[in-house]
Each structure stands twice: as structure tokens, then as C-alpha cells.
């Protein structure tokens, strides 16, 4: 019998092309980097809206369609991760943003992650490996004002349990009723549309699950976040977000990645879509 031991553990990402880019291409690069670097589970499934066609050969484990109700191709659509629990094909899932690359093996995380029902990343790193100053993170002002858990859904782990089901359901309700919720339940006004980070943070707060689903111990469950304003540059907030104009980067065909002359080891959330060039995809495919 052909027993696939990895089937219960895998990676999942949302790949809905939108105004901010071609996320299917991003997901392809992510899948290839996982294939090159992971000694353990490396399969990546993607969630795509019904009707979105992925032509030709692809590196994905499964392509799963979801009902795109409430999404708008003309918007960012950063609020669909609430659908991940109901659609994941895995018993244990690491949910990722599509615009990430894995430049090294993180297989050892899995056994540690199994201690939690769900775990959110709460501390991200700069490309130099420095912890981001979360107290002064300019992108997290609304989280601080509203005393929300400082979580990043670009990297989260979950199993299908009663608590995670409660969490995802709550996050779904908050997302769908974001206009009402943000006006009536948050002390400080938030200006943006619903996002996954904000919805899950609110859900954690509403269900009092923050301490069960975040870790006070830093065992390395983190990623490199390439928002320019948190890289520790002088006047970084004033710099443009397309960091690829500031820093050089190169990748080998085993997905070893160097950015600004720093070798990257953590999952790399490049954020700036111009990072993923056709040349880079060609290297990863070779």
C-alpha cells in the first residue's frame, strides 16, 4: 500500500489574483521553494476562487476552489483566510501568504507546533535578522490603539479542533460584519477594510484565546517581513514600499536566498511583487 505519511501535514495559501498582483505565480514560487528546501512536509495546496483557471502543469498538491462571495477583484482581498479551516486538506496546516519564499528547512517546527491547536506568529524579523520593534511598528498603530493581539496571519498554524473552529467562525463573523463591528466593538476607529490580521486579532480578543494561540517563548516561529518601514532604516517610514529598488537580491535554484547581502533563513515575505521576476521563477523551476 502506498502510504503518504505527509498527507496529514501541509501548507496552504490563498491565491486569488487581485489588484495587487498575480498571486498564482507567487504561490508557484512558494511551492517550488518548499519543494527544494523542506526535508519534512513540503506539499502546498492553494485555495482559488471558483472559476479561476490554473493552466498547464503546476507544483501544487491540491487546487481547492472556494466561493468568492464578498471578494472584489478590484480590491486587495486580504480577508479570505477565514475560509482556510473548512477547506484545508490537511490535519495540520501551516497557512501562509502566497507572496513568500522558504529559503531553508523549517521541518523541525512541526513537532513543536503540534502542542498548540492554533498558533499565530507574533514577532517578525527584518531582512538583517533583527526582531522588528513591534512597540513602534508603524503598520500596527491600529492594533496598539485597540489593544489587539499583535498577530500575523501570513504565518499561522492550526489543527481542526473545537477551539480553532470557534476562532475561525468568530473571525468569519467579524469579517462579514466588519463595518458594524469596527464601529461598535473597537474603541479606536480603524480606517481600512477588513483584513485577516485584524479579523483574527479581534476574534482572539472576543473569544479570549490570545494566550492559548500565541507563544511567549520564541522558538523561531517567525518570518522575514519586507515592509520597508520596519527594516530599521533611518526615515524608513518615508521610504517607498518597493524595497527591491533599495536592496539587491539573488536566489539559487535550491531556493537559497540572499537579500541586501544577508543570507535569509526564515520564510521570506517579500510583499513587493516586483521581487518575483520571471528569471527567479525560471531559476526555481530548473
Amino acid at each position: 500500500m502506498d502510504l503518504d505519511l505527509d498527507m496529514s501535514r501541509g501548507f496552504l495559501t490563498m491565491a486569488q489574483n487581485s489588484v495587487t498582483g498575480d498571486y498564482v505565480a507567487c504561490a508557484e514560487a512558494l511551492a517550488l521553494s518548499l519543494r527544494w528546501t523542506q526535508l519534512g512536509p513540503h506539499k502546498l495546496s492553494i485555495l482559488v476562487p471558483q472559476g479561476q483557471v490554473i493552466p498547464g502543469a503546476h507544483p501544487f498538491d491540491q487546487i481547492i476552489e472556494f466561493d468568492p462571495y464578498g471578494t472584489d477583484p478590484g480590491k486587495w482581498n486580504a480577508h479570505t483566510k477565514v475560509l482556510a479551516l473548512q477547506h484545508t486538506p490537511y490535519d495540520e496546516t501551516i497557512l501562509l501568504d502566497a507572496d513568500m519564499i522558504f529559503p531553508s528547512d523549517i521541518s523541525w517546527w512541526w513537532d513543536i507546533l503540534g502542542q498548540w491547536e492554533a498558533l499565530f506568529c507574533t514577532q517578525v524579523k527584518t531582512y538583517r535578522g533583527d526582531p522588528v520593534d513591534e512597540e513602534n511598528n508603524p503598520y500596527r498603530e491600529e492594533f496598539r490603539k485597540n489593544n489587539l493581539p499583535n498577530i500575523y496571519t501570513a504565518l499561522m498554524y492550526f489543527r481542526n479542533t473545537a477551539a480553532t473552529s470557534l476562532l475561525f467562525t468568530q473571525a468569519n463573523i467579524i469579517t462579514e460584519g466588519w463595518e458594524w463591528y469596527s464601529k461598535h466593538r473597537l474603541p479606536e476607529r480603524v480606517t481600512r477594510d477588513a483584513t485577516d490580521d485584524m479579523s483574527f486579532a479581534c476574534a482572539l480578543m472576543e473569544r479570549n484565546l490570545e494566550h492559548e494561540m500565541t507563544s511567549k517563548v520564541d522558538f523561531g516561529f517567525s518570518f522575514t517581513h519586507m515592509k520597508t518601514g520596519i527594516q530599521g532604516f533611518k526615515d524608513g517610514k518615508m521610504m517607498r514600499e518597493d524595497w527591491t529598488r533599495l536592496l539587491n537580491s539573488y536566489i539559487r535554484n535550491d531556493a537559497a536566498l540572499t537579500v541586501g547581502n544577508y543570507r535569509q533563513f526564515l520564510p521570506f515575505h517579500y510583499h513587493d511583487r516586483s521581487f518575483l521576476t520571471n528569471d527567479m521563477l525560471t531559476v526555481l523551476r530548473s
Partner: protein
Amino acid sequence: MSRGVVLIVHDNGVIEYHRMALVCAWFIKWHMDVQVCLMGDKGTLIRARDLPSSEYVFDDMIHLQPDPNKDRCYVSKDGEVKKEGMFLNKSRPSVYELSPFDETLLIDLDYLIMNDGLNQVWGSDAPIRINSIIDNIAFVDKPEERRLHQLSIPLYWATVIYFRKSPEAQAFFEGMEYIRNNYDHYGRLYRFTTHLYRNDYAASIMVHLLNGSTGENGIKWPVQTLPEPELMFAWDNQPLLKLDTTRAWFVGHYMNGPGRYVPGLIKDRSVHVMNKQSLIDVGTHWLKDQHGFGFGYV
């Protein structure tokens, strides 16, 4: 296993480095009591040899051909007048091959040893040790002295380098040489200005590469910091005023009005004296008065 200090000396017509070498070596001998090898061009070595009592502080002299760089500015003792002079600093990578020691401390001539802290370096596990953190007599926040560029890697100071003859140290110096020979390329890659070759930049790149390109939070092997992890700096505008075996007085901070300043005192801490002329003048003058201090200097 042989251990010693290597000093590199090349007079350039503006600064009498051979006189600075005598001051530097005297303090090394006084505090550390180790072998001192002077490397330099023949003319400068002869001038150093002819200085009174040089035989007591220089145990060995080795010929090292200078590799001319461009001109740089030298600030006078009063911190005002600037002179242009050839910067003869490009021969540093040759030290690995030429050093007569198994373990070498390569020290700049303008680094004034004021304690024996560097003796802790002998027998280090790490084959290379060098510092990136600096301290100042008066608080001066110079971001440009922390990195090669604000988007680049940490700046390490080639002022003091420890190395043990080893494949890692060989790679370090060969790498410095390669960077020196392809300086414009590395300047673009690491975003520093390439007008003047700086050993600090080449050393910084090699530290970064040898330690896995992981930066200050990353791998600390094979390169580590020196036993005293901070280098004290007295900048060009902070000339040396007075000196004894363990204390050095500098202009700490100039105040309004001519000749008014707050002095800064360094005690039991080695210091990088950027105002070279003041180090030569004050150091030479002070050495002349040291009779019977163990080396017979008169």
C-alpha cells in the same frame, strides 16, 4: 606557538609614521610585553631603526612593499590645518603570509595600548577576532561609522585584528585582497563610496561572508569580537594633549572661543588616536623623558 604584534609602517611625506611606530611599540611592550614585528618599506624601516632605542621595542623588521592608494587628508595637531598625503594602506592583506608569528595581533600605529587586555586574545578558539562596536571620548552619534551604508552590513574596524595561521584567516586576508582588487564592484554591491580604499570595508565584507552572511544577530564563527569588544576613538578634532603610561588626555569638546575646550581623560583604556600628528608630537615628547622604564629608552 609563537605570538606577537605586527605593525605596518610607511612614511608618506606628511606624517612621520616611523616615529609613531616607536610610540605605539613602546606602549605595546610596556603593557603587553610581547614580540613586536615592524613591517614596511625599506626607507621607513631604516628611519625607524635609526631612532634612539628602537632596538628595545622592535624585535623584528620585515620588508613590505607599499601599495599606493590615493591621497587623503591629514589634520594638524590643532585640528585645523589639513594636509594632503598619500594613503599607503593597501598592503595589509599581505600580512598573513609575512607574519612571523603563529598568532598575530595586527595593530594600527595610531592605536595607543593603555592596558594588557589584548593579552587575553592569545590561544583563542576563534581564528579571527575583530571589533565592530566603537566608543567615543565625547558622545558622538555617527551612523556612518556603524555600517558601510545605512542599507548595508555592519562596519568592522581593521584597527586591531587578531588572527591565527589557519585556513579561515588565510581566506580572510585573501578575500580582503580580492575585494581590494575589485573595489568598485564591491562598492556597488555593499553601497559604499570607493574613492579611497579602506581596509575597514574589506575586512567588514570578509567578516560578513565568513560568518555566513548572517549579520550581527547571526553566526559568530569563525570571526568573533576581541576581548575588549569596544574600540575607543579620539577623532581628528580631538587631538592628544598629554600622556603617561595609563592615562591620555584629549580635547574632549571645543567650546566657543579660541583655545577653549573641555578635556577628555582616558584611563586604562586603549584608544585609537585619529589625530596622528598629535600622537607623534605628544608621544615622542613623552618618551624622551622615560628613563629606566625597562627598555632603556633615552
